[in-house]
């Protein structure tokens, strides 16, 4: 239960959403007459299973989507006033800012240049496109000092850690005097120490009368920090409760229904006792990122058939580049990678041969490497399944697609619905389903449950574990979710600033692993 519960929440409504409905082409109803009030000086957790409409609701509140019907009221001096939020800039002008899971910063620019862009486009605090950076720098330094954070404002964003980027986003919200901050899964996977720092920052903001909407699919997180919890289910608001008055089980049942809620468990899944031959062998691997910086620094790794090797770590420590190099998607600077008992050298083979060997790949950059949003589920699956056919066997692929959609409970009106109309979680389910199907020898999975709700995440973890145990697949699991790593990995490494630390056993104390993540 929360250690931070707010005692004196004022009963002043800051934002009121009334009867908000939103649907997407193909008959996807994302929100159905949702009404929700947000009070000044509160932290409201918004929870729900995949496709429940959480993201759609916050995207409406921050101007990414316009609702089909319903009204939004925002408090102004004279009271609540009906508004239309037509764009994110419009939302910022009204004092509403979103901090998303993927930091919305321009990597090539410095911190100060990034924030200047926002200030100039909003024309607030005396800034415009002609303002000198030193003037803006002064404003920012003052804000940073207020909350006691030291950071070089002239640092390029690509040099920042994930945590620092999230900090910059929250500071940006403070600088533009946001009254309402929407946090969309942005803190979920930070290590506990870093998370506590953020929680403190949010509590400080709450004390100043600002309101925070925390979108999360982690019930413990919602229980720990929020004052109230709103539960969405299939586009409807099914429950709004004071956090101190409920238990995690109550929230879980509201989210999934009694039957499915019972399926959630966090115990370790059973492993194989003996592993097979070496399927993925990495020797002294060095890889550069998109900016030419060496981000994988001499990594050695072996994954055997039937084994799950988990790599824990905070996002942005070279995990993505490591995975992309192993699968042949990124150039190797030096070192060796062998797949399938040393028979294929990735440096010479290329991604086509690796994939044809039966290596599944759940990428970190889902929308860049994982799916084509303009195409439907069947077409996306056809690219993987019909690799060797010149004429596409559509009836076979439609059958496979239908099976995968029902097995993974993808919420979609049809397998012919363009994937751009699916929720983020359902898109991930399609990718995971397809790549598990493709994995005949090995699977490289980056955050395979990142946007999934508890029940779906549970199911995916079981599937991965099953695949390793019963089909003798070698699995390299890269995840920012330490619970997940501890639950299904047989061997654990921690990746920090491009280096691998380990091997560790699943019995290693959690604190020890976290220490390696943040050292």
């Amino acid at each position, binding site marked *: 239960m929360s250690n931070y519960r707010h005692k004196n929440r004022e009963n002043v409504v800051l934002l009121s959403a009334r009867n908000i409905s939103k649907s997407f082409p193909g008959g996807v109803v994302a929100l159905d007459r949702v009404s929700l009030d947000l009070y000044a000086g509160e932290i409201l957790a918004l929870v729900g299973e995949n496709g429940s409409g959480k993201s759609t609701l916050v995207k409406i509140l921050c101007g990414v989507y316009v609702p089909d019907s319903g009204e939004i009221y925002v408090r102004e001096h004279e009271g609540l006033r009906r508004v*239309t939020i037509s764009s994110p800039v419009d939302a910022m002008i009204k004092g509403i800012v979103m901090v998303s899971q993927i930091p919305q910063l321009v990597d090539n620019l410095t911190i100060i240049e990034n924030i200047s862009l926002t200030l100039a486009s909003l024309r607030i605090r005396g800034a415009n496109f002609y303002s000198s950076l030193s003037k803006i720098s002064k404003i920012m330094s003052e804000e940073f000092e207020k909350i006691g954070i030291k950071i070089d404002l002239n640092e390029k964003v690509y040099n920042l850690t994930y945590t620092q980027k999230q900090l910059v986003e929250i500071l940006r919200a403070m600088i533009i005097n946001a009254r309402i901050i929407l946090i969309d899964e942005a803190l979920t996977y930070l290590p506990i120490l870093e998370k506590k720092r953020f929680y403190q920052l949010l509590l400080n903001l709450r004390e100043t009368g600002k309101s925070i909407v925390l979108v999360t699919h982690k019930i413990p997180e919602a229980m720990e920090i929020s004052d109230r919890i709103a539960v969405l289910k299939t586009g409807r608001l099914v429950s709004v409760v004071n956090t101190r008055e409920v238990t995690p089980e109550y929230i879980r049942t509201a989210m999934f229904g009694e039957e499915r809620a019972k399926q959630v468990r966090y115990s370790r899944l059973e492993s194989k006792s003996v592993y097979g031959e070496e399927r993925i062998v990495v020797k002294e691997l060095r890889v550069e990122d998109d900016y030419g910086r060496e981000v994988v620094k001499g990594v050695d790794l072996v994954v055997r058939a039937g084994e799950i090797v988990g790599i824990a770590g905070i996002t942005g420590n070279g995990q993505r580049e490591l995975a992309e190099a192993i699968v042949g998607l990124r150039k190797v600077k030096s070192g060796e990678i062998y797949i399938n008992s040393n028979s294929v050298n990735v440096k010479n083979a290329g991604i*086509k041969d690796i994939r*044809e060997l039966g290596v599944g790949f759940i990428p970190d950059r889902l929308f860049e*490497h994982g799916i084509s949003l303009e195409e439907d589920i069947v*077409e996306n699956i056809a*690219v993987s399944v019909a690799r060797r056919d010149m004429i*596409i066997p559509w009836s076979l692929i439609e059958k496979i697609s239908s099976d995968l959609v029902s097995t993974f409970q993808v919420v979609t009106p049809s397998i012919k619905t363009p994937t751009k109309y699916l929720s983020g979680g359902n898109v991930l389910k399609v990718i995971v389903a397809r790549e598990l199907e493709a994995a005949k020898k090995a699977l490289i999975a980056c955050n395979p449950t990142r946007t999934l709700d508890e029940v779906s995440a549970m199911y995916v973890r079981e599937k991965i574990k099953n695949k390793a145990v019963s089909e003798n697949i070698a699995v390299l699991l890269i995840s920012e979710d330490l619970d997940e790593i501890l639950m299904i990995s047989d061997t654990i490494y921690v990746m920090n600033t491009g280096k691998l630390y380990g091997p560790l056993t699943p019995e290693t104390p959690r604190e020890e692993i976290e220490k390696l993540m943040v050292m």
Partner: protein
Amino acid sequence: MRLIVVKRKTTFKYQAWIYTAMSLFLGILVYLIIMAFCGISPVNVLVNVAKSFISPNIVKDFLVLTAMGCALLISFRAALWNIGGEGQFYMAMIPGAIFTLIVFNPQYNPAPPPIVVILVALSGMFIGALWALLAALFKAYLKIDEVPVTLILNYIAYYTINYLVYGPLKGRYTYGYLRTDEIPGIYRLNIKLHVIPRGDTLQVFLQSMVAQLAYYIALLVLAILIYVFTWWFFKYCKIGLYIKIHGSNPGYLQAQGVNTKHITLLAMAISGAIIGLTGSTYLLSELGRIPYELERQTAGYGYLAVLVAWLSLLDYRMVPISAYIVSSLRNAGIALQAAGLGGAEQTFLLIGSILLTYSIIRFLVDYEVRIAWK
């Protein structure tokens, strides 16, 4: 209160057909209003425009533009903007002229016409593909945008052909005109029906239409084959699917082990090959010889085909409709000039007003404008 623009989530049935028809109607209306302001009788103008839409004279343009529209659709679906249809179309005529006028000239080295025609077609496809591939190579391996490259290649094609027509391919039996000799009759692909249309209007129309279709029988067969190929290619062929995905997310293809450079080359080569095939068929069917300063004397099919592909919204089902509209408009412009109702600017004005209404209607179909609260 203020206005906001929101993307529509529902579409209506036959949307593409309806708004093409609406834009046509409104575009002509705008054009007539402008004409009326200029003191030209809208009735006269309307009659001439209307006649063009039901004229057998559009058959040739319609067939060529359908074939080339499908070709450009293939590269456009891959997000490769092949503006070089013009160059690929005309470059493909070079081997046609060489085979029929020099290598297999019936006067001193006759060959079975079907073999020569097949050779001309294949070589035309090859040259068309090669010309498009040049731009694709720059795009795939040097990341140089294909739009300026294909555009520049059009001019290189014009000058190359002009050089050849002025030099090695210069005709000897041209009555003093600067052009190649006429392609020998045995290699031509027309059926000339010697009929003089008579009877009532409908009979005259039908007889003229049959005569036109017979004369352009090769282009007719070609357009049908290319249209069927395009349908099959995008519906059943793996490369068609790859091309579609290349247009929306090439990164996904890469991660699936597909070489996107090869897809770039393939999409452009297939597009160029179809245009090349159309070019060589056009030479044997309609043109009959290559004139000097080709660019001043021909229809600019490469550019009109870009318009056709765009008007179809990159939907192959709409390509014949777009080709029909564009060829009718082009002929309407010519008819207006012939009727003394204005110069070439009439054509541009008419096409311009239809494109304007098309763009506005397309916007309104995709988006709705709502009144919003501050």
